[in-house]
């Protein structure tokens, strides 16, 4: 069977791309919020040994798999435009990179 002839919808695959980017952005957002708001950081310490990194990563993993499943279901028969998916993905990943960059916290007055 020639796979080239199979024209599967791109939706489920593009869902995984957006999900990865959403997880990256979530991690960035949580990392920044946990540093800026001490109480939120304490809440994210799901494990005392690991600290707030435990909550940040567990929530990001949940966002990754749940958003992938949800978007894949929504887009199971559709073909979202690749250009739009690429732009959204790039924006979310840049947000994630920014949020996880320690110098970014310092803009909000987090102690060095």
């Amino acid at each position, binding site marked *: 069977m020639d796979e080239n002839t199979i024209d599967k919808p791109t939706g489920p695959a593009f869902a995984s791309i957006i999900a990865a980017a959403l997880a990256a952005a979530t991690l960035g957002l949580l990392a920044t919020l946990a540093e800026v708001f001490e109480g939120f950081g304490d809440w994210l310490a799901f494990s005392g040994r690991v600290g707030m990194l435990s909550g940040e990563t567990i929530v990001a993993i949940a966002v*990754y798999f749940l958003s992938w499943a949800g978007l894949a279901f929504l887009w199971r028969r559709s073909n979202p435009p690749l250009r739009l*998916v690429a732009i959204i993905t790039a924006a979310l990943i840049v947000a994630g990179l920014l949020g996880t960059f*320690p110098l970014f916290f310092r803009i909000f007055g987090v102690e060095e």
Partner: protein
Amino acid sequence: MHLTYREWWSLVHGFVFGGGFLLSFAGVMIVMYGLRRSDLTEKGLAQHLLWLRLGTATMAVAAWGTVILGTWVMYPWYRNGGAKAALLSSSQTSNWDKFGMEWKQHIAWLAPFLATTVAFLVLYFGARLATDRRLRLLTLALFVGAFGTAAIAALFGALVTKISPVV
């Protein structure tokens, strides 16, 4: 040569999983970049796809193994076992924790998300990646992103460990 219990785990985290991921990148990248229908016979395309599926799936597993071990096994030893306190005890080394470790522990987690997505794209689209240039480039970009984030984490991991090892 004697390795402590923690050093054995460091070896698995940094060398087996992390090193395996980084070293596999070049090979998988070449196969992915060379996946052009016009340059390949039917048999060549099938072989390329087999290697690509094996390579990206293995790298995704390695990326998850690296970050899970790093976060749940290595990091508590670093955080509670004296390595972090040693860095923070001097103004000359404190930024290795406040910047280096802080960045590494977060950015590393982007690698498994991106690597898993790349493995899924290869599995899902298969030979279509060889004919659709835009899909191939998007997959390549995500793959480079996975490598880039893992490489930054590995670099800071090695440097922080060199300055204040977890023993």
